């Protein structure tokens, strides 16, 4: 049985009607049925049609992932559910704001690494920086890791947004 097989992370794109309660429906489905949410992002993407796009990263066995997709698709305000992980190549990005406090050598090193990671300085004080770093989860994670020894004080992340490669829409 595939229930015993290993859990894999899947990135799922959900196109929904932008109406009150829709996020609660999606989140409630995950908590109510005991599924994991690793990351979740949501915002309106089509104001004219009043549609929002939710990107969910979830982990589960193939059978669970299949259930998650079927359960999402069953919600009345859901237009489409696509599993980007299985439906071919796709790109994922997330954005993080990283606050680093320090002076002297550490401050210079933080700035130098930010340059390597193409992180932007979006706030600077004499003893702190806020960096904006964008990329896939790996890159963001690595950057945050490097900042830890250089005076990291605060992090905020958007979670993943994702899209399939090529000319096709969702």
């Amino acid at each position: 049985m595939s229930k015993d097989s290993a859990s894999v992370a899947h990135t799922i794109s959900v196109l929904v009607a932008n109406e009150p309660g829709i996020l609660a429906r999606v989140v409630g489905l995950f908590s109510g049925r005991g599924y994991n949410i690793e990351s979740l992002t949501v915002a309106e993407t089509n104001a004219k049609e009043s549609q929002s796009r939710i990107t969910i990263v979830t982990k589960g066995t193939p059978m669970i992932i299949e259930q998650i997709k079927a359960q999402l698709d069953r919600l009345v305000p859901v237009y489409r559910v696509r599993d980007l992980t299985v439906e071919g190549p796709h790109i994922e990005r997330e954005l993080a704001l990283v606050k680093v406090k320090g002076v002297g050598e550490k401050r210079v090193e933080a700035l130098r690494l930010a340059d390597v990671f193409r992180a932007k300085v979006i706030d600077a004080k004499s003893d702190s920086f806020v960096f904006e770093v964008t990329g896939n989860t790996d890159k963001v994670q690595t950057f945050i890791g490097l900042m830890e020894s250089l005076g990291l004080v605060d992090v905020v992340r958007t979670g993943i947004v994702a899209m399939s490669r090529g000319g096709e829409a969702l």
Partner: protein
Amino acid sequence: MLKPEEPATTGADLLVKALIDEEVEVVFGYPGGAVLPIYDSLFKQNRLRHILVRHEQAAVHAAEGYARSTGKVGVVLVTSGPGATNAVTGLTDALMDSIPIVCLTGQVPTHLIGNDAFQEADTTGITRPCTKHNYLVKSVGALARTVHEAFYVARSGRPGPVVIDLPKDVLMNKHEYSAPPKVAVTHKSYRPQTQPDPRKIEEAIELIASAKRPVFYAGGGIINSGPKASKLLTQFAHLTGFPVTNTLMGLGSFPASDKQFLGMLGMHGTYEANLAMHGCDVMINIGARFDDRITGNLSKFSPNSKKIHVDIDPSSINKNVRVDLAIVGDATLVLEELLKGWKAREAKGQPLADQKALKAWWAEIETWRARNCLAYKPNKQVIKPQYALERLYHHIKDKDHYITTEVGQHQMWAAQFLKFEKPNRWMTSGGLGTMGYGFPAALGVQIAHPEALVIDVAGEASILMNIQELSTAAQYRLPVKIFVLNNHYMGMVRQWQELLHGGRYSESYSESLPDFVKVADAFGAKGLRCDDPAKLDDTIKEMIELKHPVIVDVIVDEKENCFPMIPSGAAHNEMLLGPDDKQSSKVSEEGMVLV
């Protein structure tokens, strides 16, 4: 488009108009502050009938009974706060059993929402996980449209309960009415798949034709699809000559008297049905969902079969059991296509199921059937519950009858000993297992079928959970019969305590029971009692003849257990057939944690 000559009406009037346009005849409800405008509108018209229940939970169950016995959408009207929260059990019940319900709940006026106002509850929040969908109507302009959409959502696809939360100001504001759309609604995001994929039908026909030890496993999806689906199933079964078993929800979808019928399957199903499921090589599941009461131990469930699963809900497929072929679609449409495919194959002279193998399979099934798994030890002194139901069936079988049940041993015995020849005649709480379901459901059935004989098979514990509805029965002169199998125990709890908890009957004795005959009398119903097997027939006859609501208090054997039984965590071929059939090994730890 709005017609200028059409005068604006209040939200409450619009609502009533919308219900009438949706061909609603009856609303089950209970008034309160937030829904006063609706009750005022109801007062001013005579197209819609309102049935006043005595508790909001009963309103939903009554609407469920109405819906299940007619195939129509059941409608409920309750007030805000406690009205809505009391309805939650009924809504969850309807969700689990896929019953089309539209439940209108009152709400405090929009400007007070979120202020912890009197009788305010976050109804859409509370009911989100126990409805198919819910709406909070924030402006009167959206009201009529929302009602029409709610009915469409409730009855289409896999049916279910839909809540419309109606703030009081929305009910009092004025707006023009918009009629339901003439053409079938195409919802912008909700589009259930009803037509099956033709390639899957072909594959299914191939697989069915290759079967040597087949079984049809048919569930509530057939009932929900309409009576035609039951006819088609029967036709297909006759054409193929395959055995048929029904789930608890599917009883009536195939005639119980048919010789191809194996009875109900599952935890308290028949020996022949469960062994056929265990030993089959092709399983054709139509409208059932591999519920845990059916499968028993999943890792040992029907180990050598190819499984076909027909379901209207894609999320039911591969949820518990991985199947070899999934067909998403409405049972009627799928069965039509399967029949067409099968007949075409027959016409072309292509090979059909191996008749010799099928004969051998039937021979094997007959040996299982010969075990007579529903046999019980007759007794001249005390009434055996099984005997009571056998006698009941004997007296009602030629009458136009409907059966509802509460939940527990009596429910399983009713499923085993009453025979269902037609769909929509059997109303029981299958998924949620709601004690207190049967009596209000019977009231709903009786409203829909005033001339029919409607019987709630009950236990003495369950019936107390909605006994207040005797008042409703009296008010509307609903001659519902409550057939109480009174064993002075919460029987199924006691049975499990006996089998799994060393006979420590913790809190399962029905202490301080009321005198049911006097209870009936107090409510203006009739009460009968019987504790003698020799007098049972007369009591049942008297019950049937009475034109009143009746409680029959049948005093039955206290210690009788419900068999056959698949103990928790066991497989279909590890059934217990009776009290002398000792469990080969104790129920495993793993089995103990299951319910």
